[in-house]
């Protein structure tokens, strides 16, 4: 708040009201419903629901299918985060270094940000198409029969490739802007002290980039957990049962296709706790960053 603030009593209320009403109706109400219905079991014939306590949660904890999906989600998240951050870091360091064509490279490496995840998934479906896909042809050339949508591991591979491709631009934009915000004086001093480019990178550039990298780490985890929904939905081609899916996708299939409202809500609540933990981590880190500077 500013020191010289206005003191009209009603105006700020009127200004805040639209935002607060929308948040109350479309955020707090559904969030509460999710928590509430996670303690109930829906009657299969649609005659109301019964309070079952923590049954939905114990059912989840015991479910081997849920464990499998959770396992894949962790694997998928780690791989997508590491590969897209790593590739973007390499590209950002090079784009920061070159003098000629720097702007053109920046444009060519960031525009994919604007492509929607399901459209990216559709591009993947084209490249990995069973009959006409060039990547499938490439694998066939080396004697491997790639079967997306039929073979669990093949689909997982294609999903990872598409999700990484889609995520590189965001990481690239942030890392490049992080690199460019390192003061010229610091770079020049490092150049005088140390001739080796690799040493300079790990001793000077990388630590200065660490706050950006940490922020991106959380962003990438959130992306892999939630925003890849579109990629997955297109690439499983209507057959999620025999294909790899993530936890968020399971919330959707169990709730909308399986009609298991209680189970789906319990899964939602588990994810809520996960996001909460991630956000708290992020803010604790931000606080520390503020103390540094």
């Amino acid at each position, binding site marked *: 708040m500013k020191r*010289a603030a206005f003191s009209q009593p009603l105006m700020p209320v009127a200004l805040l009201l639209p935002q607060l009403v929308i948040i109350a109706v*479309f*955020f707090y109400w559904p969030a509460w419903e999710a928590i509430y219905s996670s303690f109930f079991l829906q009657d299969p014939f649609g005659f109301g629901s019964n309070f079952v306590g923590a049954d939905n949660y114990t059912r989840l904890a015991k479910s081997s299918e849920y464990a499998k999906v959770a396992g894949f989600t962790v694997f998928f998240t780690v791989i997508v985060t590491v590969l897209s951050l790593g590739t973007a870091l390499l*590209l950002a360091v090079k*784009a920061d270094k070159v003098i000629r064509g720097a702007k053109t490279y920046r444009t060519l490496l*960031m525009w994919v940000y604007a492509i929607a995840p*399901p459209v990216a998934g559709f591009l993947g479906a084209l490249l990995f198409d069973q009959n*006409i896909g060039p990547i499938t042809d490439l694998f066939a050339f080396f004697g491997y029969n790639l079967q997306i949508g039929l073979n669990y591991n093949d689909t997982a591979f294609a999903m990872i490739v598409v999700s990484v491709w889609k995520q590189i631009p*965001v990481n690239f934009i942030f890392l490049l802007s992080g690199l460019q915000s390192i003061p010229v004086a610091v770079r020049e001093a490092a150049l005088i002290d140390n001739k080796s480019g690799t040493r300079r990178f790990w001793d000077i550039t990388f630590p200065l980039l660490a706050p950006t990298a940490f922020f991106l780490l959380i962003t990438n985890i959130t992306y892999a957990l939630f925003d890849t929904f579109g990629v997955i939905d297109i690439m499983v081609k209507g057959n999620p049962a025999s294909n790899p899916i993530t936890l968020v996708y399971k919330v959707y299939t169990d709730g909308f296709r399986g009609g298991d409202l209680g189970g789906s809500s319990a899964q939602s609540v588990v994810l*809520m706790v996960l996001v909460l933990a991630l956000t708290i981590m992020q803010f604790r880190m931000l606080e520390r960053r503020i103390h540094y500077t």
Partner: protein
Amino acid sequence: MTKISHNKKPIRLSTVVDHAILVIGALVMLFPVYLALTTTSHDNITLSREGLKFGFGDQMSVNFYTAMFEKGGFTEQINGTKMLINSLILGVGFAIGKIVLSMAAAYAIVYFRLRFATFAFWVIFTTILLPLEVRILPSYEVVTGLGMANTYAGLIVPLLASATGTFFFRQFFLSVPEELVEAARIDGAGPGKFFIDILVPLSRTMIAAIFIIMFVYGWNQYLWPTLITTDESLFTLVRGIKQITQSVYEGNTIPEYGQAWALAIIAMLPPVLIVIFFQSWFVKGLVESEK
């Protein structure tokens, strides 16, 4: 930086490697979309018989025309033009709604003596903890219960229940020098006049930046439109991708690759062009809003 007088030196090997890595990266980014473009230029029988082609054929205008102006095919009732209009309504409506709501809320929080300002801030703040995806089923039930399924309002308004824009403007308003509001008050300007005559003109670049980010975000929405619009006349292009995939991969006839990819290209084009042409605003909006 080593930008100091390199002119007379011969080209170094490391520079060549740097450029090679960047060129490969750029090609990997371009390749899938290039292939999608060539796909729109061939007829369906050729594609299913001979596989994807790396060169352009002569069917492009036919495929785009069919996809954009003829009904039927992927959806029964609407053509690509109608989907394009729906996408624009979602993208622009979401961006404007976001800017209006969040500027108003941020103005109230930053510039007024308000007892529950901190409370309001936390109520808004909490929304970043739970993305729509984790509360999707109850959100669907609430919106359907309110009779908002298959309406533009039901499509746009629930997406507005988040804090991102409010934070962005709050940060920006806090960075505006205090002297401005003091001077305005001494001159007798009220909160309305100060907002319209001073704060909005000062925020122009910020508004443009956030508009671009939010337009792309709204245009690219998928899960929510898939659930809430079952009426085909409300389908957006990105929502339509699901129908298109189903007809290409789950149908029995020869897949209509050409038309399918024509629609997918139209679904990417507006956000991609905006991001490229307004690049500096876009990057500013993205990097600033995440701080």
